[in-house]
């Protein structure tokens, strides 16, 4: 009986450790610099949203969030569109070719981000898509395919072949089997991929900076936000407000997908 109590205590303690920085971020977003530096953990004197207005106005955060939504949303859709059929095929393949293709996808994990930057830049320039959101929308799925395919392939392998055979006997095509048999069962796995890819795409900075470029009408939130940081005299209240503003979509997506992700993590743990 002691162990659960200790582990519960540790879990709550760990949760508290995670909450403190978030609390600091939120309360600081309602303060001036002087208050942030002198009373870092104290509640703000007033809950004035002036810093938020300043952050959104100064750094053009509204179009930046819209751009991030466009880039992340379309890149996610493209990732799933490519990864789900690929994973389905790989999970059902029994030959050597399938194993080689799966291993090739896994090799993608070995490519460092920086190593791909210059060739990617050359490709963007060559295709005439440099300084466009379109190129990034096409590029991001390529960076996410190894993870998405590996996760979904493992997930689909757990689906009994009998279900597929029964559907085939009822005259279902391969596409119908994927849509009506595999996809519903794979929702937790897909949610996991969506969440991981969303975080990766939303937080992407380097390629967004270089490829999309300096146009405030096109830049993503990760490129817009640093414009609130100055060489000297940064208004940290405004910077924190901008940061909170950009975190809201992340929390929303996590709130939507976290239950499915938990299901994905424990699926197969209990026979039923």
């Amino acid at each position, binding site marked *: 009986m002691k162990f659960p109590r200790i582990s519960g205590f540790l879990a709550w303690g760990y949760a508290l450790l995670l909450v403190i920085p978030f609390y600091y971020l939120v309360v600081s977003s309602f303060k001036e610099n002087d208050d942030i530096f002198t009373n870092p953990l104290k509640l703000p004197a007033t809950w004035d949203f002036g810093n938020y207005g300043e952050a959104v106005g100064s750094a053009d955060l509204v179009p930046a969030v819209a751009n991030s939504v466009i880039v992340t949303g379309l890149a996610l859709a493209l990732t799933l569109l490519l990864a789900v059929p690929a994973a389905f095929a790989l999970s059902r393949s029994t030959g050597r070719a399938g194993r080689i293709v799966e291993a090739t996808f896994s090799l993608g994990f070995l490519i460092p981000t920086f190593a791909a930057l210059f060739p990617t830049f050359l490709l963007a320039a060559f295709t005439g898509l*440099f300084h466009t959101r379109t190129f990034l929308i096409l590029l991001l799925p390529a960076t996410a395919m190894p993870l998405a395919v590996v996760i979904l392939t493992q997930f689909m392998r757990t689906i009994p072949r009998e279900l597929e055979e029964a559907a085939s006997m009822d005259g279902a095509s391969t596409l119908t089997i994927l849509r009506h048999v595999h996809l519903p069962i794979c929702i937790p796995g897909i949610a996991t991929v969506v969440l991981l890819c969303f975080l990766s795409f939303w937080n992407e900075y380097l390629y967004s900076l270089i490829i999309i470029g300096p146009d405030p009408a096109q830049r993503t939130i990760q490129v817009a936000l640093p414009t609130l940081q100055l060489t000297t005299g940064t208004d940290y209240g405004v910077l924190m407000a901008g940061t909170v503003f950009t975190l809201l979509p992340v929390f929303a997506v996590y709130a939507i997908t976290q239950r499915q992700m938990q299901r994905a993590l424990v699926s197969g743990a209990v026979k039923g």
Partner: protein
Amino acid sequence: MSESLSRRTLLTAGGAAAALMSLTGCGAVQALRPASGGAGTLVVHSQFNGAVAGADVFRAIVQQYRDTTGRSVATLSNGSDLPIVFETSVLAGKEADVAIINMVGKTLAWTDAEATIPVEGYLGQWGLDTRIEPGAVQEWTTPSGHLRAFPYTRTNWPVAFNTRLLEEAGLEIPLTSADLIDAADRLRSKDIGPVTIGGGDWSGQKLFIQVIQSFLTADEAADVFASGRFSESEGAVAGIRHFAELRDAGVFVDSAQGFTSDSMLTQYNTGKAAIMSSMSSALAKVPADRAAETTIGGWPVPPGAISTRPTVIQSFNGMGVWISENGSRKLDLVEPFVQWLFSDEVVAQFITQSGRDMNAVTDVTSDRFPLVAQAQALAAGDSVDPVILPDLLIPEAVFEPMTQATAQAFGPGTSPEQIVDVLEASYKNA
């Protein structure tokens, strides 16, 4: 969570994304339309954005230009990452026509690398030779005689003294090192911090360099900072010894080596420290009540120094107006815009509304930013000795290691010899 809910959630999310994209497609979201870079549009890439002083003024004057001339101007912006974005744009042949950015680090190589064009030929042609301070033109000229860009903003680096706090401790503004050490003692006895500084970042590096320069002629300083041979310069060694004396006498606030320029500004603004070495753009951020009890001066004179008066770092280095290779093909669009930037009207707006120091010849001072105006008057007078801002001399690769070395110098217990060693190592290892 049921599958049906997941499907509904997915449909809702997909619908929202589709709606947003259709909005952008049909032009309802004007803000998301990419800036046009056509033949009739001037594209300007600047650091006047976000929270930078003057960003709102820049937006306004560009709009005024569009309204009065009917010309099309597209504005692009970045912060400190502008150089890398501009350089990759150059490689792709898609750089902006004009870049407005500091002359520091990577940008020092732009003229020789032909990323931007030399502009000395347009100085007289566009009537800017009488509009820009001659000293600025000189500072912005390469060793091979090419003017890199039209120098636009500049900086003064004086010292702010809180006279109320000094008076509380029975002090006047310190003019010598002895005065400063005495002031530090008395301020500490009143629980007031003496000199606040961001010892861990560039602001500490600048003050350290300023102290050393009191013992160097301009030529010696140029040689020492370019070569990094501190141990071979008697003046530099004397300056470092003096810096260590000041540090050990408690002149700098406790834990200065861990502070940044932002913590320095906050300590001064909250009255926790009485003295701050600060560039003019930071002076513009001192609140009115604190500014009212602040007097601007120079860094006190050390014994045996070459400088006979308090020193102030003065530089014509700030943002300049660079013309790119693409811009050189649109000079008919570039010329009127650059002339507009240097017009009395626009320069006055920058000075009065954002507290910027400008390289343009002007009599305008800012009432809204009294400390910046004080700093300008001080620089124009003869009560201080100017010292150089060695940013143009220190090799780019040395900047960061040198800042780490000066952070160690602010740490208690680091001997002058150790400071010399870490400084020289920062040059050797860069």
